């Protein structure tokens, strides 16, 4: 139950009665009378159970973009209901205007809309709907909360989408659609066309020119239909925050950019995410909607405080197909985790695939290493140098195994990884 603001007002009205009959007894009589009224009103208030609430599916939205959820409310009782309804969501769903006035005649229905502005990635859940119905006197109300499930899926924001146009332009250069046509390793024969000034004379096809009255050149395009496997590490090391963003989110950003780029380049994109076990898997996405598919798959991934089981993840990669692929491991370059978990399984991967490790570097580490003002800072700097040294050592070990290492700040990692992919593609190393 609940009382309304009219109860204190009504109690204060009793001052008039007290002035007329200035005795202590008047006070208690008045309070008793008000209590009685409240009790009567409460007894006459309609039950919140007569209000039926349904929620259609809420859907999906990119992080930071507004969404809305609707509630279908119906009065199944025989009396008119008046009151308040609150549609409660977890705070990071950013519900706005989640309190609604209810005034429904018997049998009437209404649609209540709540705006949501998600501030966090993942599945954001509705917590319950509270219905408070006033009695006829407006003094007391009956209230009940019940679960009306609803989930808003908030997708990774894909901030690095701004880098996509420039990388696509570079891809087109490779593709031979632009003026410069490159012949080299890793390109395959596309078509023949007339020679124009500026073309590489080495690409003149003499046999075809002999059959024609003009000089004919061969054009080339980069190899297509390669596989790219993105492996997203969601283990404890990905929980660490660089700035205020978990490494996992930065890695997702990089993965999305690479996936979008690879799909445009005609490659197939597979995606695996996991730690001790595989948490999410997407197979052979190659359409233009790959970024959306991956965002959907990544939406409810959260860092888990366990060590990554790289044997299981490598098994998942192998399970996706035996065809040679570019395997991108999105995992922080944490020396101990990499040396104990990743290194033992790497030879098996490098034997079949081209492996790239993409890691989010923490700029704070270099700042820490550069400070030397106080004793604390000097000791911190020593610790930071040691960490940097071990990272270098680990990166060296990885390179010795034939693995490419892309280590960049959170902002720089997506374009750096995309550039590395383009470089590999240009050299035909996929």
């Amino acid at each position, binding site marked *: 139950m609940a009382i309304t603001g009219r109860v204190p007002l009504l109690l204060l009205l009793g001052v008039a009665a007290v002035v007329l009959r200035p005795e202590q007894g008047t006070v208690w009589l008045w309070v*008793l009378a008000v209590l009685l009224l409240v009790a009567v009103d409460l007894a006459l208030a309609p039950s919140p159970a007569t209000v039926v609430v349904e929620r259609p599916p809420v859907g999906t939205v990119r992080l930071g973009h507004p969404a809305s959820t609707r509630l279908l409310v119906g009065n199944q009782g025989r009396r008119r209901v008046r009151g308040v309804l609150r549609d409660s969501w977890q705070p990071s769903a950013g519900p706005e205007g989640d309190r609604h006035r209810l005034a429904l005649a018997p049998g009437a229905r209404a649609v209540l809309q709540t705006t949501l502005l998600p501030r966090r990635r993942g599945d954001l859940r509705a917590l319950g709907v509270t219905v408070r119905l006033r009695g006829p006197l407006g003094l007391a109300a009956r*209230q009940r909360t019940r679960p009306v499930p609803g989930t808003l899926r908030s997708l990774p924001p894909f901030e690095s989408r701004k880098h996509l146009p420039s990388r696509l332009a570079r891809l087109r250069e490779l593709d031979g659609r632009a003026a410069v046509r490159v012949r080299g390793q890793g390109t395959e024969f596309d078509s023949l066309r007339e020679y124009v000034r500026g073309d590489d004379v080495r690409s003149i096809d003499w046999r075809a020119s002999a059959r024609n009255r003009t000089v004919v050149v061969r054009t080339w395009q980069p190899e297509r239909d390669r596989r790219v496997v993105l492996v997203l590490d969601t283990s404890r090391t990905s929980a660490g925050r660089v700035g205020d963003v978990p490494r996992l989110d930065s890695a997702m950003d990089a993965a999305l950019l690479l996936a979008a780029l690879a799909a445009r380049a005609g490659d197939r994109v597979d995606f695996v995410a996991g730690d001790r076990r595989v948490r999410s898997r997407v197979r052979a996405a190659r359409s233009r909607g790959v970024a959306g598919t991956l965002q959907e798959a990544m939406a409810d991934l959260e860092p888990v405080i366990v060590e990554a089981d790289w044997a299981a993840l490598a098994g998942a990669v192998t399970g996706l197909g035996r065809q040679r692929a570019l395997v991108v491991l999105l995992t922080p370059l944490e020396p101990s985790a990499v040396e104990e978990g990743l290194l033992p399984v790497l030879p098996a991967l490098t034997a079949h695939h081209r492996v790239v490790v993409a890691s989010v570097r923490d700029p704070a580490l270099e700042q820490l290493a*550069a400070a030397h003002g106080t004793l604390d800072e000097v*000791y911190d700097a020593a610790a930071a*140098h040691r960490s940097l040294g071990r990272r270098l050592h680990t990166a060296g070990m990885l390179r010795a195994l034939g693995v490419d290492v892309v280590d960049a700040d959170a902002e720089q990692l997506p374009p750096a990884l995309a550039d590395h992919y383009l470089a590999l593609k240009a050299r035909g190393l996929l």
Partner: protein
Amino acid sequence: MTATLTPEAPAKRGGRLRRHRSTLVVGIGLAVAVLVVLLAGGAGVRSAALDPDNPDPAGAQAVARVLEDQGVDVTVVRSADALDDTEVGADTTVLVTSTDQLGQSTLDRLVDHTRGARLVLTEPGRGPTRALGLRADPQAVTFDDAVAAGCADPSYSGLAVAVDDGVEYDVDGGCFRGGSGALLAEPRPDLWLLGAGEALSNDQVLRADNAAVALRLLGGRDRLVWYVPSLDDLVADDGVSLQTLLPSWLRPALWLAAVAVLALMVWRARRLGPLAVEPLPVVVRAIETTRSRGRLYRKAGDRAHAAAILRGAARARAADRLRLGSRPDPDTLVRDLARHTGRSVDEIAALVGPTAPAPATDHDLITLAERLAELDEEVRRP
């Protein structure tokens, strides 16, 4: 994701009753308590101090009862009119408690009516004594021990009064004298000022000889008129306390306001549904482990280790800068560094050499870090 809720089955009704049982019990208890107070209020029990009908520790019912048992005819009057209606003669003692309720007019009526009788005022303050024209300044005092009578009056010889707080009257003579006057003064014949009013109270009457003093003071005559004055009898001109200036409805109105505030709190405190909770993510700063390693070095005071790391890092950076490969010979590196920076080989060796001595003090360590940073700057410069 769509959920349909049907009205709850009646089977749950019993459960709801059980869940709110404690609230119900408390509510009914409160209502009963309010009723009892309403019905039982004002049933002859008085709450004023030294009231003859007050059985509380501060009341004086015990003395009144004992005097009655001793054959004294005790009449309680509670207003000036009732006092006027009571016959008062030479065989009467008039005891006045709650003397702070006396005003000029009631005091005049009292003195007029009790002419010839023995008049005992308990703890009159400065107001009543001035109004009576007495030169007996009251002085509030506290006592640790009993006060012996020590006066000429034979009725109190050998007795002692024990009270915690009392009022002494600055008069000549009088009994139970203390530092600033007498606890029992007779500034005028047959007018007694009793400064030890507590001696009559229910909880103190049995201390020392309080009971004997009370009986001898009040039981000396056949009749005792116990006058409890009331502010209601005062006329407009009397000097009165603040309370009488305020309207009589103020106190109940304040009570009502308090209840209204309570209702306001209940109104505002009731939430519309439970608190919305957020499953909180793990927050780990990636730099955390490095910082704690730094703190560990600091705690251990491992200057040698810290210096070795700093020098090693400086060598690695310099080697990178001078393009000497990833693992250059230290001597070659020192020589090249000296040539590049224009410093002496010994100085460079003492600064970054692998065999350079560890800093002896914390200050040396800081200096070393600074000089390594300077060296790094110099190497960077083309």
